[in-house]
């Protein structure tokens, strides 16, 4: 790592996730942005640049040119405001850009926000819009949907490693049990293994309970140069490492679909930047857009050896009281997945744990956490490592 400045998160704010008829895209983003500013005890005038993560606002809502549309409503007229699109990793990608703008010394104080408004469209149309994150000319044209791409990953993972249907279900059961304790989660109910196994089929072997939710929501963080962190109100959290990597958009271009090479590459760089390894990480928020994605991610991050993620989950290894708590927030499965907001929201959830503000979900060990945000079937991945002294 070159000689960059240290960067801290000094403000974090999220909306609840859910289906909100009365709140449009901008209303959600502004609510999260104001919460992040209030949390940092910062005025809008303090923000020097605005980075928005959003996947498909124009397709879902008709509105384009979203970054200035939102930053001006937050009272930040005049500053550079740009939208970043990287499918479900959009606000992870926005965070990556914002980090380097501060680390390199260009700006001292910036805001990252993520937002998606999805429930204004019927489910078949949502499925079609999300499929746009795949290769439209090939896999999507052949009838692939996002659940089906991850279903094919699950089938191959089961074939190669002996991962079982109940292993996938155990991920959903665990995430629902965490989300039930999260006041901001969309689906605050526990489910049984039997329910998860016998849900309505979406794309075999995945049922409704293997799939994340269709959600509205927003999240935002304020980043600043670490040497100015004391000017702000909330306990600063250090950004120790952040890395982004890419891969083919089409799943059929990958030699082995049971691993995400972009995730492995981003993890390797983020660990090196932070000077830590997988065994040092105390807890993580992983991108469980589908249950199998959480299993593959924990393997690619090195939390567990390849092929053992399903077994580890089934044995309780990733519960809040397990050796590697994953998605104590409830994850995308229970908390909700407003896709463009998810990367920023994961960072907010890690910040909450690091500050010991997670209430009933608070983990015992909370000084070093990791967030992993995935776009498409693995074509973009952002890994962020955060810590407190």
């Amino acid at each position: 790592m070159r000689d960059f400045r240290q960067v801290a998160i000094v403000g974090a704010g999220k909306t609840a996730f859910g289906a909100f008829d009365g709140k449009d895209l901008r209303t959600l983003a502004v609510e999260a942005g104001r919460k992040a500013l209030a949390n940092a005890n910062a005025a809008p005038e303090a923000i020097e640049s605005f980075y928005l993560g959003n996947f498909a606002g124009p397709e879902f809502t008709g509105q384009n040119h979203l970054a200035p549309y939102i930053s001006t409503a937050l009272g930040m007229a005049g500053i550079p405001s740009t939208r970043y699109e990287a499918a479900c990793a959009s606000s992870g990608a926005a965070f990556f850009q914002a980090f380097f703008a501060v680390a390199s010394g260009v700006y001292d104080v910036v805001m990252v926000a993520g937002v998606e408004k999805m429930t204004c469209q019927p489910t078949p149309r949502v499925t079609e819009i999300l499929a746009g994150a795949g290769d439209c000319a090939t896999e999507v044209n052949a009838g692939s949907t996002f659940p089906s791409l991850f279903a094919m990953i699950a089938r191959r993972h089961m074939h190669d490693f002996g991962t079982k249907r109940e292993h996938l279900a155990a991920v959903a059961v665990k995430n629902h049990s965490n989300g039930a304790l999260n006041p901001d989660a969309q689906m605050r109910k526990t489910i049984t293994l039997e329910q998860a196994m016998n849900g309505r089929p979406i794309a075999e072997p995945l049922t409704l309970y293997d799939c994340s939710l269709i959600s509205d929501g927003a999240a935002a963080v304020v980043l600043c140069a670490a040497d100015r962190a004391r000017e702000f109100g909330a306990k600063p959290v250090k950004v120790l490492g952040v890395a982004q990597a890419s891969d083919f958009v089409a799943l059929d271009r990958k030699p082995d679909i049971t691993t995400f090479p972009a995730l492995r590459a981003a993890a390797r760089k983020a660990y090196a930047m932070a000077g830590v390894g997988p065994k040092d990480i105390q807890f993580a928020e992983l991108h469980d857009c589908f249950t199998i994605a959480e299993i593959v991610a924990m393997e690619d991050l090195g939390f567990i050896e390849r092929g053992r993620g399903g077994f580890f989950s089934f044995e309780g290894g990733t519960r809040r009281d397990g050796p590697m708590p994953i998605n104590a927030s409830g994850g995308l499965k229970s908390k909700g997945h407003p896709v463009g907001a998810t990367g920023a929201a994961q960072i907010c959830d890690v910040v909450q744990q690091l500050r010991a503000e997670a209430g009933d979900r608070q983990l015992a060990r909370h000084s070093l956490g990791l967030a992993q945000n995935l776009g498409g079937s693995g074509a973009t991945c952002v890994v962020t490592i955060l810590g407190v002294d």
Partner: protein
Amino acid sequence: MRRGTVYTETVVYLAPERFAADVPYQVAIVALDGGDKLTVRIEGERVSIDDRVAEAESRDGVAYFRKTT
């Protein structure tokens, strides 16, 4: 005629509007003899990983494969 082996597969129950009439339908990634992989629709009998398949037809840029013995 292209031939290959099923690398992975799924049966889709929730589809966008344009494929809604086909539900449930099977999609597979086929490892073609010769090395490339291709995402295809499966016609006829359902297939599993390692099954041998061959191209039956091509419509609207989509290859439809069938199980062979």
